Every structure is written in structure tokens, then in C-alpha cells.
């Protein structure tokens, strides 16, 4: 059935978008770092996954277990060394956002440069779990389905831990008002660093999963940063469920337009949807009202 087909492949595509955006919503929402180098870390993780797979035959699913902690540690270090000075001297969160844009813009070139030196500029691509799976009569690639499931599971898990656990609530408190959070004995610096690092681990996971089916090269980071940014803002900054829903919505919308109207209109449709959501709800689908 056409509608079901569109819905399912749209969900799978949207799953990829949501997966790519989960980390940024944490980094931007909680740590208030507008990380322009976000996509570079995704690509770096994808390249790392490729090296593990092509080099020593480690499957990306196993590679996840290796890459995520490494990415967590790396991003923790980046926050503490590169971004802490900015955090310390920022008078308020808007100033921090601007400063972090500039700093992470520079970081973008550093990461991209390192990736180019190690891997060169060429395309990398490998097929893993490129097996057709029949879901309710529609065919879906297994690797893309896994990306969707991972996004849904992790997104929901983090959302639940943010709302139901103490540590999660502390993170949300920091996102709402860091000064007040400090007054109630929440270690704000630690919380932000943790959020940033966790976002980094998530984007690395996204990179590894996406590498299973997408072709990538060291210069592709910006594409993912842009997509993640749209999803994050459309879903409401800092809201995991929002990012998930927005990503899925974009995926379904894009697929519907490609099948029912014209594939050439997909980009236009994506941005129209983005604009429409922001016109109706300026802070995003699940965003908080202006403080």
C-alpha cells in the first residue's frame, strides 16, 4: 500500500535525521554550546568505523562499543580545555552561544584537517547489513532500520532519564537556569561537561550507524551539522523527544513529497516544513516558551 510504504520509508529516513540530531540537542540545549563542528565528529566516527571494518574486520555494531566511550572522553576533554574558558567568562548564555559558535567553527577546521590528512579527500563506502527486511509489506534496508531503532530507543531512554532520574533533572535544571541550579548545589560545570560529552558520544554513535549505508568523505561534516541544526531547532532546543519527532516528521515529509509530488522538491519541502513549524510554534515543536 502506497501510504504505508511512504510512511515506513519516511520513518526510516527520519530515523537517520533524528539520530544525527540527538547529540546536538544535548550540547546546545543543556551545555548551550552551538557546536558547529558537530558534523565533523559524525564524519570522524564514520571514518573510524570504516577503518575498523576495512582494517581489522570489526563490525560496526561492535565498533559502537569502542567508539562511544572514546568519543565521550574526547568531547569531555574538548569541553574542559577548549570551552571552559569561554563558559567562565561568558556573562550570560547568549554571549556563550556566540563565543562557542566562533570557537567550534575553528574546531571544525581542525577536525576536518586532521581527517583529511589521515584519510585523504576521497569517498569511503562499505555495505554492512544491507539486507532487505519486509515490514508490513514494505521493503526496508536492515541497516537503516537499525539506525531508526537506535534513535528511537536511545532518544526515549535519554528522555526518560532526563525526566525521571535525579541526574537527568539536574541537567534539565542547568538547561533552564544555570545560576539558580548552582544555588541548589548542582555542579553546573560538571553537568554541562557531561551533557556535552554525552552529546559527543551520541553523534559518534550516529556516525558509526550511518556509515553502514551512506557514502562519506572527510569534507561532508557541514551537511550533517546543517541537518542536525534544522532538526534541533524544529523540535525545540534541548528536547530529546522533540528532536526525535522533528527528525521523523522531516523524513516522512521528504519521502511523501518524493513519491507523491516530485523528488526535485524534497529540499524545498523540508525547509517549508521547517518554516511552517517555526511560524506556528516559534520555539519549536516541544520547545519551552521564551524565558
Amino acid at each position, binding site marked *: 500500500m502506497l501510504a504505508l510504504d*511512504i510512511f515506513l520509508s519516511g520513518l526510516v529516513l527520519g530515523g537517520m535525521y533524528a539520530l544525527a540530531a540527538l547529540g546536538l540537542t544535548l550540547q546546545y540545549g543543556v551545555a548551550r554550546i552551538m557546536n558547529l563542528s558537530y558534523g565533523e565528529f559524525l564524519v570522524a566516527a564514520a571514518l573510524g568505523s570504516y577503518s575498523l571494518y576495512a582494517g581489522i574486520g570489526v563490525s560496526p555494531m561492535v565498533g559502537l562499543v569502542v567508539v562511544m566511550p572514546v568519543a565521550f572522553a574526547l568531547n569531555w576533554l574538548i569541553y574542559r580545555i577548549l570551552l571552559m574558558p569561554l563558559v567562565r567568562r561568558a556573562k550570560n548564555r547568549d554571549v556563550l552561544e556566540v563565543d562557542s559558535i566562533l570557537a567550534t567553527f575553528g574546531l571544525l577546521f581542525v577536525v576536518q584537517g586532521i581527517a583529511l590528512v589521515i584519510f585523504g579527500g576521497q*569517498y569511503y563506502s562499505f555495505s554492512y547489513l544491507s539486507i532487505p527486511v519486509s515490514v508490513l509489506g514494505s521493503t526496508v*534496508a536492515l541497516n537503516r532500520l537499525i539506525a531508526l531503532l537506535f534513535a528511537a530507543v536511545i532518544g526515549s531512554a535519554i528522555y526518560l532519564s532526563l525526566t525521571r532520574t535525579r541526574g537527568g533533572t539536574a541537567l534539565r535544571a542547568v538547561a533552564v537556569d544555570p545560576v539558580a541550579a548552582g544555588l541548589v548545589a548542582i555542579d553546573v560545570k560538571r553537568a554541562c561537561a557531561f551533557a556535552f560529552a554525552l552529546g559527543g558520544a551520541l553523534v559518534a554513535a550516529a556516525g558509526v550507524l550511518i556509515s553502514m549505508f*551512506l*557514502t562519506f568523505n*572527510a*569534507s561532508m561534516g557541514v551537511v550533517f551539522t546543517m541537518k542536525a541544526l534544522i532538526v534541533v531547532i524544529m523540535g525545540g532546543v534541548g528536547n530529546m523527544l522533540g528532536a526525535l519527532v522533528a527528525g521523523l516528521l522531516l523524513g516522512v515529509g521528504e519521502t511523501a513529497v*518524493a513519491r507523491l509530488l516530485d*523528488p*526535485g522538491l524534497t529540499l524545498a519541502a523540508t525547509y517549508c516544513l521547517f518554516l511552517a513549524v517555526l511560524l506556528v510554534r516559534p520555539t519549536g515543536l516541544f520547545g519551552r516558551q521564551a524565558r
Partner: protein
Amino acid sequence: MHGSFTRILAATAMLVAVALPPVVANGQDVIKIGWAISKTGPYAAGANITLLGAYKVWVKDVNDAGGIMLQSAGKKVPVEIIEYDDRSNSEELIKALERLISQDKVDFILPPWSTAFNLAAGPILNRGGYPHLAVTATTDRAPELAKRWPNSFWLLGTATEAAVSLVDLLTKLRAEGKIDGNVAMISVADQFGIDVSAAARDAFKKANFAIAYDKSYPLGTQDLQPLLTDAMRTNAPTFIALSYPPDTLMINEQAKVLNYSPKVFYTAVGTAFPLFKQKFGANAEGVMGTGGINADSQEFKDYVKRHAAVNNGMEPDRWANPVGYASLQILQQAIERVGKLDRAAVVKEIQSGSFDTIIGPIKFVDNLRKNAWQVGQWQGGEYYGVAPGSNAGARPLAFPKPAWK
């Protein structure tokens, strides 16, 4: 009077010095070759695999042999490289070329990657009088540009030639009763896809083919399954995708997942990359694409080994990379025949001479290389040229494409 005489003498000396043509600063110890190429940015991947690899092999081959033989120096002169990164940005490209010409004063300039960049570099290289061997450029404007810039040479054929070659092949298949007149075609909404699909639509109409599905998609689309599903529903035996490398790989992968295996399956740019075989292995069998090569030639096989040795194990693509290397062989032979670093004479030699290269003999007709390979196919683990069938080493088309494994 004494003072004014000295002054007049000094002024005359200055005028004479300025009026004389500049002394060739390079001397005869080294030939300076410059290039601006996309080492970063969206063009980096294509530039890397298609051009830079070939350039590196050529420089090594030339310098290993001692250099280029210059009669005016009476010996072989090694080649020195000056390289700039244009960052996939046309303004940077132009700045870099100007720098190479006016500041670094290089003897020869090698072209950048992509049709758009060769068009941008054209006027500058023309003004400087540098021979411009445009390899990675597929444009119908080539004949007109060759007239406007007589120092430019176009080696890959035009968009129309690419489309017509493919349509002719399909017409032959239809005459043999192997396929019917229905075609499903998708194209990337970028210069290449737009130009070639327009030419293809024209050619299909003239040959009485019906295009049952004709859609274009934006560059960078991350899921082409919707288009493939709709193409599949038309039941056309021929599927053509005028695609770029990331899309080419994705189309093949998603077609496999959907089990979409029409009798003729063509994905344009990227099919000739060794990455394609690496990723798909036995599933590459029977897939058609742009370009092609006489893969049986011993010269080409040696070139593949040399390329891998110089480029960290990366093999050349089976389309434009060997043509790039051949263009440099042409440059070297022209310089050697002229005997000195006289760019105008080198241009004339390239225009009129016949050259021996790894892809066979090349002779330009009105600055255009005729009979460039337009359609190739993976057969038995190697990518062979299929059309034009009159080219040396052309293989017959393996029909139909075997089912996905």
C-alpha cells in the same frame, strides 16, 4: 650638460631594460609546473581520485626518468611542483591561478577538477598563453570554447556524446529484440545531470523511446529508495541514473535491497571507481556507467600498479584518471618535440601532433578528442569500455544484467 647627459643615459638604459622582454627566470635547471586543485571541500573526493592521483604518478614517472628532455638545455630537466588548494571555491581557484602565473611564474599549469572549474580557469589560462588540457570537463560548449580559447583542449567528450552513445547502444538492443522501448531515467540536479539528461531526452525522442519515469533529485539526497520504487513500478527493462558518486553507490545499494534488477542498469559517474567494485564485489557485474577503458592493454595494467604504489594503494578510476595521465603524456611529448619552454609553440604542437599515451594514440581534431569512451560495464571483475564500439579494446555489452546476489 654633463649631469643631463648622465641623466639621459640613465633614463635610456632604464627604458631599454623595461622594453626588453623579461629574462626567463627559471633558467634551465628545473621546469616549474603548477596546479590549483580541490584538496578540501565538496569537490575534494572527485579531484583526489580522478586528477591528483594521476598528477602524482606523472610527476614521479617524469622525475624517475631524469626529467623532461629539453634540447635548449641539452639535458633532461626535472619537474618541480607548486600546488595550491582551491578549497572547492572558484574565487580561490582564480586567485591561485593568478598567483601561479604572476608570482610563481610557472612554466606550465595543470587544470583543476570539474566542468565548472575548467570553465572558470579557461580565460585566465588563455590570457597567460598556457596550454589548457581540460580533462574533467563534460560540456556541450567544448567546440565553441575550443574556438574562443585556442590553447584549450577538451578530452572527455561532450554531454551530448555521452547521451547519444548510450541511446545508440539501447537502440541496437531494441532492434535485436532484447528490450522494449520503455526507459526509466533519474538524474542529479547538478550541471552534469541536467546537461546529460536534456541531451538524453532529445536522443530518446529521436529514437522513439518512451521515458516512463523521468525525475531529477537534489544533490546530496540521502535516500533514493522512493525514486527507485517508482521506477520499478514502471516495469521498464532499462534503468538509467545520471548520478554522481555518492548517489551512484546509494542507488546500487538500494536497488539491491529492493531487488530491482532491470535488464539494463546504468549509473553514471562513480561506477568506474575502484571503490565501486570494492563495495559491491560480485554485485558490480553487469552494471554500466560512464567512461570505460581498454582494460586489456598492458600499458593500462602497469599504470594501475604504479598508481597504487604512489597513492597509498588507491587504484585509478577507469574513466577520467587515465585520460588525465594521458593528457600529461601529451604535454611532455609536446614540450620535448618543441625542445624549449615556449608555451605558444607547445600549444601549436598539441593542436597538430599525434601522441602515444597509455590510452592509445591521441590526435586532437579542432582541439577536441574524438571517440572518448562513453559507456563502460563491469565484466568479470574489471571495468571495460563498451561504447563507442569502434574503439580499440571495446567489449560487447554483457546482457542482461545478472540478478543481485
